[in-house]
């Protein structure tokens, strides 16, 4: 449920466009706030900013993959999440299919005004706002308010409630995409003209099977062969959100997750004037980020939970979380801080900025407890442990699940299991419940 004091508005007058984004819930530097106020000033490159905001909003309204049997089902679009990191504003959204994440970073050079607070909140992005943004021509300055003085407003307006059903897998995917993004490394950069050529050549519908994008000369080429160093791309149309921004683009940068022949997360970053539009894509269009399970190892580790509590207390909505500083201040090894951040990411409490190669602090304005408990595989693994279904014999564990006893084998390449889930995905989507259960027992013994 979103609660806004009034709808967001965008009006034109006095030679400028005035956009007021109404806020709902979230956290600021001083704690929970029903209606945070983050910014009051001008947003540079107004036409570019308007197109970027529309792109972010469009991703939230789009289902890039429709499962068989689900035709035209409607999931109401969740409102974008805005984070003020002190020197920049980040607008994030997540697609209805849970496979595409978009973020518009308005960097310091594009903000001319007062950043009034740090924190994260939802902003109302209603149809009239979208219509008005589409009319911004770039000739008039764009004045932006993120939040407004509630004390004044609430006197003359009732709170507007928007009920938006947010499925568990959507919430989980929105949190987990950050962890997938944290595994990427820069793959290539191409000039704006090549970016235009490449993205415009993509079809408006695409195969679900992953393909790989590789540099070829000055441009890019798509191959169906799994290629180390290439960026995996499934559902070619999922890069289309970048298209309206191509005319503002300076360059296109892509980041690749560790090579996986079954597909891997790809992060695409359009470099704009004092801004970036980032799109992260799940390994396959039919695979939402919610099922990736990359964080399960960290979540299964009780020590990580304690570390995460310690680290979270030291965060202050930094645009770039300095792991070495946190390590020094907390007394934890850098690796433990990193794992703790992973756990916080799964709970929606940090995001990852591939351009900076660092996490940033933001707390998704959803129920953190709910986010932290949404891991059915971990839940099932715990149940197996509680039921005494695991027995260890050296490097091998035997896990009884129903009337089958699965064999979990520890190898140099990771744990392996005889269950169908492992058979289908290997290790590419995190551990299965049997592997997790064996791991829980090993850690406990």
């Amino acid at each position, binding site marked *: 449920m979103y609660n806004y004091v009034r709808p967001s508005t965008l009006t034109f007058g006095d030679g400028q466009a005035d956009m007021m984004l109404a806020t709902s819930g979230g956290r600021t530097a001083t704690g929970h706030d029903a209606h945070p106020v983050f910014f009051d000033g001008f947003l540079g490159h107004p*036409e570019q900013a308007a*197109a970027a905001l*529309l792109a972010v909003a*469009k991703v939230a*309204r*789009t*289902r*890039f993959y*429709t499962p068989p049997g689900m035709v*035209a089902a*409607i*999931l109401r*679009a969740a409102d974008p999440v805005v984070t003020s990191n002190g020197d920049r504003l980040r607008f994030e959204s997540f697609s*209805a299919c849970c496979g595409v994440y978009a973020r518009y970073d308005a960097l310091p050079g594009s903000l001319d005004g007062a950043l009034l607070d740090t924190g994260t909140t939802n902003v109302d992005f209603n*149809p009239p706002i*979208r*219509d008005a*943004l*589409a009319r911004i*021509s*770039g000739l008039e300055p764009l004045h932006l308010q993120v939040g407004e003085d509630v004390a004044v407003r609430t006197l003359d307006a009732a709170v507007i409630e928007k009920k938006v059903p947010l499925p568990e897998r959507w919430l989980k995917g929105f949190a987990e995409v950050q962890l997938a993004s944290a595994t990427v490394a820069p793959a290539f950069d191409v*000039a704006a*003209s090549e970016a*235009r*050529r490449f993205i415009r050549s993509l*079809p408006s*519908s*695409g*195969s679900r*099977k992953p*393909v790989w994008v590789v540099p*070829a*000369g*000055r*441009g890019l*080429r*798509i*191959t*169906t*062969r799994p290629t180390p160093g290439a960026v995996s791309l499934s559902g*070619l149309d*999922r890069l*289309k959100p970048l*298209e*309206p921004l191509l*005319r503002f683009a300076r360059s296109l940068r892509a980041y690749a997750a560790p090579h996986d022949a079954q597909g891997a997360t790809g992060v695409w970053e359009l470099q704009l004037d004092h801004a970036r539009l980032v799109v992260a894509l799940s390994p396959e269009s039919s695979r939402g980020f919610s099922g990736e399970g990359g964080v399960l190892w960290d979540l299964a580790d009780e020590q990580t939970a304690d570390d995460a509590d310690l680290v979270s207390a030291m965060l202050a909505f930094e645009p770039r979380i300095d792991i070495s500083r946190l390590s020094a201040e907390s007394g934890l090894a850098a690796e433990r801080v990193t794992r703790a951040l992973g756990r916080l990411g799964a709970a929606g409490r940090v995001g990852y900025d591939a351009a900076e190669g660092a996490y940033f602090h933001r707390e998704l304005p959803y129920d953190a407890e709910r986010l932290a408990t949404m891991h059915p595989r971990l839940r099932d693994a715990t149940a197996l442990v509680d039921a005494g279904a695991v027995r260890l014999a050296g490097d091998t564990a035997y896990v009884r699940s*129903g*009337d*089958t*006893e699965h*064999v979990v*084998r520890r190898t140099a390449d990771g744990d*392996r*299991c*005889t*269950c*169908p889930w*492992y*058979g*289908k995905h290997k290790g590419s989507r995190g551990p299965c419940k049997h592997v997790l259960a064996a791991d829980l027992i090993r850690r406990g013994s």
Partner: protein
Amino acid sequence: MAEDGEVIDWWERGLCHAWRLKAGGLTLSGHGILESTAGEGFAKSGEPMGELPSYTSLVGVAPATLFGLLESGADKALNASYEFAWQKDHALLGVIDRALAAAATGSRAADASRPRWLQGLVTRELSAASTSSWSSERFLRVRLLERLGLVQLDVDESYVLAMVSAVGPDKSDKLRADPDLVERALWRVFEVEGGGEVSLTNVDRFGADDWRKTFLELTSDRTLDRTRVITACLHALGRDFAAYRASWYSATYLALEPTAEETAGLQTDLRRLLSSAVPATVAFAVKQLARVQKTGLLDVEATLEALPPATVVKAKGTAIAALTLARAGRADFRGLVGIVARAALGHPHPDVQRAAAKLLADLGEADGVLAAAEDLTPSVRQELGLQAEARQENEVPHDQSLAPVPVPVSTRDLAERAAALLEDASDAGELEAVLACLATGGAEVLEPLRKRAKAVVARGPQTDLGDSWLPGQVARLVLSVLGDTAPPAVPDHPAQRFVARRLSEIYTSGAPLLATPDLPGGWVDPMAFVERLVQNPSPRHHDLIAALLRLHPDGRDDAARTACSLPAAARFALDGVEPTRRLLRSGREGPAAWWIAAERSWTPYTTAAPQLSGDVKTHTWQENGRDRRSWYAKFTVTTANTDRPTGDQPTELKTQTSDRWGDGSASRFLGDWIPTLAAIWPRDAEHFLSLTCLPVLESPNWAESTHDVPRTLDALARHPGRMGTLAAATLAAGISATQRDHRLHAVDAFIDLVVSGRIPVHEVASVMARYAGVWPANRWVESLASVAQVPGGAAVTVDLLTCLLPQLSAEHRGLKKLLDLLRDELIRLDRRATDPALAQWLGGFAGSSAAARTARLLLG
């Protein structure tokens, strides 16, 4: 990309078909209204309405009276039990209809307050009608209740979309009779985008443009203000609507035929559309502004300021039209025109770049071109006298990527890897590795797979391939190893039967397998073959055949010299010497199938090779009352090895002709089988292609997705054997496929097979030329441009075009793009078109067509 709720393309095309299937008795009327012949099925999607009483017949009846009638008739409907919630709504809608009909005829009941169920029911009706175009006139009932004061409704998105979806036929009459609805709701159709099945675009698409005609009628009789409608259309185009749904507004604007003066008055709105994210909207705006410019009423300066975004939209026609529009301001606004032209240099299409460069040159700003030189295509650079980008061709020839040698399976990882095969058996090497391990023991470790194997066997009938699907065969093997039984599933084709039989005999002996590949490409090293035979003097029947077919051609003599005692057929496979004592096949030692396999291990198909023939066919049909025609290529694969194929000789192909999927041996769905079929006989790719090529050959004809197309192309790309007629044709069809992802697989196969020299360029070019009439050239351009990007690819692209082009007519559709590609690649390679046949063909061009100009440029 289907936006949330948007109807995606295949669904739209298949909509009528789906309706028929889904509802059994339902048919789509000419106005997109569903008519029921089956009753029950329709009720869920909307009550078929009888004649509702008119509003005028009910005016004056107090709401309390009507509520009383509703209450009095609702008890039965409310108290009945239902299986589904919609059935209750269905019953209550009947109550409403009866109560209103009764009221119209003067019936009365005791006054009552509003029934509690009424508002919720109406809200659900609106919600359903706003998302489904299955409804007919269900909005009218809601509107009647609203007009009578029985419900209060906000004109929100659902309300507007329900009206769009379900106001029924004769919209003009209904709207004229309800001015309040026009003012409150009708104008909002320009603000509400809709989605899924319900939007103006989609409803009109399946409803004979009924809404557009309604607006034309209402403006012509002045029920609606024409200028307001025209302006509202432009405002709607300026909203953040998806391209598909925005198209209704531009088409309606054009249908209203605004005069040049009216258009001039709207130029501010039109200029806003120049930066629209919808390319078609930008094209529309440029065209309208060009029209205004002809009248002399255009605000040129303002237009030039707004024009740069229009020069980089995808469609080159729009960008060039924008440049033409900009050119008009050259005299008075040189600076602004220069900005527009410099923006257009960033367009990827050479024609736009040329037009922009020319405009800059005319402005005397050639420096602007120099600054953007890196973004220009090679041909444009050359024409402008700039140094062309030279491509460094890799001197190392591109090698084909053969299938790697599978990593051996041990009893430690047997269960895990067998479990993976139960989920996906498409890795032929992995299957062989698991079989090799299973052959020598390890049954006990498979126990965790018992339950899953049973499930996989049971799932077979639900798959496209039925019981005989490959994971099912693996599951049967697992169960048999565990001492369980599963009913056998015998595949249709002898080659598949051979594999199934080989699997079933694995566990009949504890000796190692002979046919496990140990060389890249799925070959068996002859020396290893001999060593395995020494350990396994009584080989499994099908395994020996499989091994003979996989014998690598190199090293046979050495292996033969080291071997002491071998089955005669195996020795013949190694040394090629027919035993002197028994010359007749019937008198040979061992089964005939061994000897056939041994012979096949030496040579690919010769006279018995599968034959391919193809014809261009015509398909005619009627659409919207017009005759339509399309052309497509129809292929036939003829095999003629034997009339009685046996299950132990997979290379013997049954004498038959297959000309469509699913016919004879050309199964439509082979799925996981394809890599395994391709691995049967590494010596000759034509063998497996005779079973799998038809879906690829037909892939340029249809947009339908066929999963076997990429699998076949991938298997072909890695096949180490002889590439014959089928291989060249399959590859040529693949790069011409309708679906982009099929073409991507074909391009990779092309790189593996043609760039590496495994398939001669001229063979592929011949097939392309033969079917040039039905395989669009623009797909070739895209595929070949991608090929040209890899090392060695540019030279092969040039060679192929050199071979292909002289076989095409000068009027061939898409020829200009092929010529442009040839020119770009020649420039990149710093080569010239010197081939005599090509030069003669290029010299035959006359006139001033774009193709003729490029031909002359190619000749230098």
